[in-house]
Structure formats: structure tokens, C-alpha cells
């Protein structure tokens, strides 16, 4: 029976977890500001503030007398949605996506930890389904720094690396290309293209919540294996590996979506790894055969839906393969007395 003290400490831990995640999201946000100007910050502000507002209103509406502890998960949801969008995305529609994430995917279940689906993935998937033209049309990166400019270049269809891979274009890798890919200076989602910055965030994750990296590692490993074995277009296996991992929001999703703590997310290292690999496999299948160039949010939602059943089956399989000792006392006896007889 959990005491009041342990409950309080659990609440504090959840709060600290989301504050850590928000701190990690600062770096991609700064990169988005650097590449796309103040418009990116405005989009980020609208999404985070909108999510928090919908969260507060929802709590007041559904639980008028209760005062649930605030865990900053709504801020995190809004920030993740914003950073996966192009900087030119309309602000009102971004707010609708955040409203969907909070009102439909989170509020009916109480909190993010009780929700069966990752709210940010649900919100982004809703935006993808409703306004695909706006979600996947990315503006060009500004030629000169314009940190306070409240406008971006218009979005261009097919300008991102993921869309080029989807139509079968190939690319020869060079040091310059790789540098552009790693720093995110190519058209794409405003906050999820800078791979180096995201790797730094992963390094921070290593010290704050290392267990969650099992999901990320499994996810990226599965994506990498599929990309290496089945390159799209005329790309070589190695090029395909680099391009697929650096395109879209794959690394960003590996850090912030795949390892999210939902109601049915696994807790132990091996299930976490398997969950990540399962999500990665789904993601690559959606990328290869799906309608949209980026299917990671759909993969996360599918994994959230399927994992409770798949996890039970896999756990059964694991326990049937690794059988426990039939008689522990007999084994203990064997180790003590029986061992002497054997000798």
C-alpha cells in the first residue's frame, strides 16, 4: 500500500522527469530559432501555451473540485508537436493539433502516464491526417540570420530528405552533405533535424534517465537494420543507413516519443529494447509503404496499441524458452549436499 509520502515523491519524480525533458528540448528549440527565426519560437510558444491552457481547462471541466498535481507534461506535448512541424505551419492549426493531443489523447485517461497512447504522437498524427500538405511542405532555411523575423519562406513540397527518399531519389554522400545532415541545415521539421544536438540531448538522457535509452536504441537499431538491408532508390546500403536515420524526425522521435511513459509502456530493459525494435520496424514499414513520408507518429501509436498484447505473448515465449528451475529446494540441496555426493 503506497503511503502518502511515497505518492508525493512519485509525483515529484514525474514532475522532474518532464522538466528534464523540457530542458532537453531547449537545444532543438534554439536550433529552430537559429534556422527559421522568430517564427519558429512563435510556433513553439503557441503550441506549448495552447497545450497547457487546454490541459488546465480540461482539468477544471472534468474535475472541478480536484487539484491534481501539475506535471508539465502538457508543455512537453506542445513542444514536441511544434518541433516536429515545419516553421511555416499555420499557428491556429498547430493549436488544434495540441488540443487534440490533450483533449482526446490525454484528458479522458487522467494523465500522460495513464494514457494508452502518446499524446504528442496522437496530436501530430491528427495534423498529418488533416493537413498533410502543410505538415510536409518545408520552407527553405534562411540565407542570413534573422533571429527576430516573424515570417519564413513558403513551404515547398518534396523539399525534405524524407520525401526525396520516398520518391526514390538517391544521394551521394560527401563530408559536406554529412555535415549538413548532422547539423540539420536542410529543409525539414524545424526542431528535429539537428542530429548532433539531439545526440547531445541523448547524452544528457544518459545521466538523467538511462533506462529510457533502451527504447531509443532498439528503435534506431531496427530502423538502421531495415535501412541497411533494404535501401530505397539507387542508394548504397551505407548511404541508405545514414540518409534514413538523418531524415525526418527519426532521431527526435527515438528520444522523445518512443521512450515516453504511457500506461502500457514496458519498464524492464529487455521489454524496452523489444518495444523499441518493434516500433522501429513499424516505422520503417510505414515509411516504405505508407502514404506519408514520415510515419513515426503512426508507428508509435500502433506500437502503443499492439504492445500490451504483443508484450504478453513475447513474455510467455521468453518464459517458455527460459524455464525456471522445477524444484528450487532440490537444486539448493544439490548445491549443498548433492554437490558433495557428486564429488
Amino acid at each position, binding site marked *: 500500500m503506497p503511503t502518502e509520502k511515497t505518492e508525493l515523491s512519485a509525483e515529484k519524480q514525474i514532475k522532474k522527469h518532464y522538466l528534464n525533458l523540457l530542458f532537453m528540448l531547449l537545444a532543438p528549440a534554439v536550433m529552430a530559432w537559429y534556422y527559421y527565426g522568430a517564427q519558429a519560437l512563435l510556433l513553439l510558444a503557441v503550441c506549448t501555451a495552447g497545450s497547457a491552457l487546454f490541459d488546465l481547462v480540461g482539468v477544471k471541466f472534468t474535475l472541478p473540485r480536484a487539484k491534481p498535481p501539475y506535471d508539465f507534461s502538457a508543455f512537453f506535448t506542445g513542444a514536441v508537436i511544434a518541433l516536429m512541424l515545419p516553421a511555416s505551419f*499555420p499557428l*491556429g*492549426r498547430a493549436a*488544434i493539433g495540441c488540443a487534440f493531443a490533450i483533449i*482526446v489523447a490525454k484528458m*479522458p485517461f487522467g494523465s500522460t502516464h495513464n494514457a494508452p497512447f502518446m499524446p504528442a504522437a496522437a496530436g501530430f498524427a*491528427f495534423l498529418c*491526417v*488533416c*493537413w498533410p500538405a502543410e505538415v510536409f511542405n518545408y520552407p527553405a532555411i534562411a540565407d542570413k540570420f534573422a533571429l527576430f523575423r516573424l515570417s519564413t519562406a513558403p513551404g515547398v513540397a518534396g523539399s525534405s530528405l524524407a520525401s526525396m527518399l520516398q520518391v526514390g531519389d538517391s544521394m551521394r554522400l560527401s563530408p559536406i552533405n554529412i555535415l549538413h545532415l548532422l547539423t540539420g541545415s536542410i529543409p525539414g521539421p524545424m526542431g528535429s533535424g539537428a542530429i548532433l544536438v539531439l545526440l547531445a540531448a541523448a547524452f544528457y538522457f544518459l545521466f538523467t534517465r538511462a533506462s529510457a535509452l533502451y527504447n531509443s536504441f532498439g528503435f534506431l537499431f531496427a530502423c538502421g537494420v531495415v535501412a541497411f538491408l533494404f535501401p530505397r532508390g539507387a542508394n548504397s546500403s551505407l548511404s541508405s543507413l545514414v540518409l534514413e536515420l538523418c531524415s525526418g524526425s527519426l532521431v527526435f522521435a527515438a528520444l522523445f516519443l518512443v521512450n515516453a511513459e504511457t500506461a502500457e509502456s514496458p519498464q524492464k530493459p529487455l521489454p524496452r529494447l523489444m518495444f523499441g525494435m518493434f516500433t522501429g520496424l513499424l516505422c520503417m514499414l510505414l515509411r516504405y509503404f505508407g502514404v506519408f513520408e514520415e510515419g513515426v507518429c503512426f508507428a508509435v501509436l500502433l506500437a502503443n496499441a499492439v504492445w500490451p498484447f504483443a508484450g*504478453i505473448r513475447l*513474455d*510467455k515465449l521468453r*518464459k*517458455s524458452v527460459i524455464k*525456471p*528451475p*522445477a*524444484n*528450487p*529446494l*532440490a537444486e539448493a540441496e544439490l548445491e549443498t549436499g548433492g554437490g558433495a555426493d557428486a564429488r
Partner: protein
Amino acid sequence: MPANRKQKAGPLQDVFLKGILVHNPILVQVIGICPVVAAAVSLRAAALLAGIYTLILILTEVIASAFLKKTIRWVRVTLYMLIGLVVISPFSCYLEKNNAGIRITVGIYLSLLAANSLAVLRCEKIAVKNTVKYTFFDSLAASIGYSAVFLLVGFIRELVGNGTIWDKPVRFLPRASGMLMPFGGFIVLGFLAATLRAVVIRRYPQHAKAMMIQINPMPVTLKVPTDPATDKISNDTAEAPVINTLVTEAGTETDVPEALENADPPADSEPVNENETSEAEEPGVQDKAEAITHGEDNPVPSESSEEDSGEHSSIAEESSLNTEQEPPQEASQTQAAHTDTPQDQPEGIPGHSNPDLIDQRFMDLLHFLEECDTPSEGNKLTDS
């Protein structure tokens, strides 16, 4: 048992209250949601489907109540679909010739209304067991409840997904075309169901329990031989109380009869049902019970504890749970006694749900259908 299945005659407003709100076919009973989710993408299409559906349901139920009470069951069910087809065919032909657009919108779901599960269910549960008058009002109430949800879903999805109301543009929000997809229908239905539940709990609290009962699983009775005199298990066969409380709240609360707690099961008991019943809920229940049973706070130093964890009934495990003051030797004896009858236990992976669970559910369904098939007297509407 048939007496429990009888429809209690009540005042007319009670019939309508239950048909529209408390036992709403879509939002509470979750029957016939396919056309709502797939085809109710505009108010016009929803109105068309709701109108035709109302006609089908009322006609089918009244005909079933008036003429089909003594017909063989499988013939009756076929006739329900034929009645539906007779109603739908002229509408379908008319729409194809005069309004092809809406015919394309409703698609195959117009024809599928003929084989609607709700009509068959209400005919079998209500119409063939009641008077024509009662059946008419019941079908009318159900139709109103169904149509209201149909129209509401169509209205919301057209407004949000298409930005129109009855094809007239309303511009106050950007069009979220995703709501026209089936997932939009499910979301709207979910919120409407929650709203209905809140309304019933607030306005009609006396019916709130009935709504809960509608969505609970069927009670599974466990036949355990007990001796009424000593309250101990004996060779006499008696029907034990329903063990749903034990099943659903294994980790928190156990309403296990004392006879089950204090005695060993005989060799001719039916532990298969016990085990499968305990796992008929969610898979985590068994794990919870195991975690408590074999947890650090309450270790069971039994030699066969690993083997017993999945092979024996959860009731036996729970009985060892509840007797915390019982010496460990006694608990181990209890479990050891259970291992004496391994031939009665189901095969499965220890500590996990039985893979043949679906068979148990199927058997429960068969029992339920048999009970439905038993004849019962018709009801009369006492108040008009």
C-alpha cells in the same frame, strides 16, 4: 433463470427513458456502430440512414412480435433480414436514379442495414417475448435513441471535418478532414458516450447502475461442492456465489467464500473454470495475484510453488493469500493437496493466462444463448 430474463413491464416513459438513454443501442450497448462510424460523415447521410433504419427496426420488430413468435429461430433470423431488404431495396433504387451523390456517400452501409445486428437482437430479446404494443413502443424508443446518435455524429463530423451544416458552409474553424475518417467517428462516439453517462448519473442516478451492468461481463458461476451444514466443501454439489468480485479485484479485494478459504478442493471439482475465470479479465490480474502470493512480504515456502503458480486455481491462491495468519506449512499443505489432482488442471504456461481462454468465452456465450432461447411469458404494457 427464465424469470430473470423477463422484461419488467413499466410505464411508457420508463420504456422511452431506457430505450433512448439508459440502454442506448450505440452509446451504451455498442451495437450497430459500423454505419455510424463509417457512413455518418454528413448530416444528410446520417438523416437518410437513421430514417431508413427506424423504418426497418419498427417494421421488423412489430412483424416479429405479431407473426413470428412460434417460428423456428433460424427461420426467424432469416426473415428479419428479408424484411430489411424489402424496406431498403426501393430506397436504394430511388437514390441511385435520383441522388447518386448521397448514394455513394452511404455506400454499402445502406444495404448492410438489412443485416443489422441490433434489429436481430431486439427482435429475439424483446419482440418475440412481448406484446405487439410493447414491442412497438420499445422499437420506437430504440430507434429514437439510435437516430439521435446517428444525427449528432453526422452533424459534428460534417461541421468539424467539412466545415458545413447540411451542405451549407459554416466558416469558423479550419476544416479538419481527418474527422471524416472512421477514427473521427470513434472519437465522437466516445465523447458522446461519456457525456451520456455523465447525464444519466447526474439526472437519473437510479439508472446509473443499470448502465454499468450493461457493459460488465456476464457473471460466471462456479460450481463448488459444499456442505451447507458445516460450510465446508464436501462431495455434495452446490452452486457457489458468483466470483466476479474475486476475479476483477484480485489485487485489492477478495470476496472469497469462507468455504473456499478454509478447505481443500475435492478431486471431482472443476478447477478448470476457476482458473479460466480468474484469467477472463485482464492478464495483469493473475500477475498481481502472483506478485502478492510470492511477494517478499508474504513468501510461500512451498516446494511446488513454482509449479503451482499457473496450474492451480486463483481461488486457491487467493485463499492462501487471505489466510495470512495461517502458518506457512499449512499453506504449503493446501497447495500440495492441489497438486494431487494434476489431471484436472488445465495445461498452460505457469503463471500466465490460459491460451484456451477463448473457448471458455465461447462456452459462456453458448450458455447465454441457451438461456435466451428458453420460453418466457409475454409482457404487457401496464401504463400508457
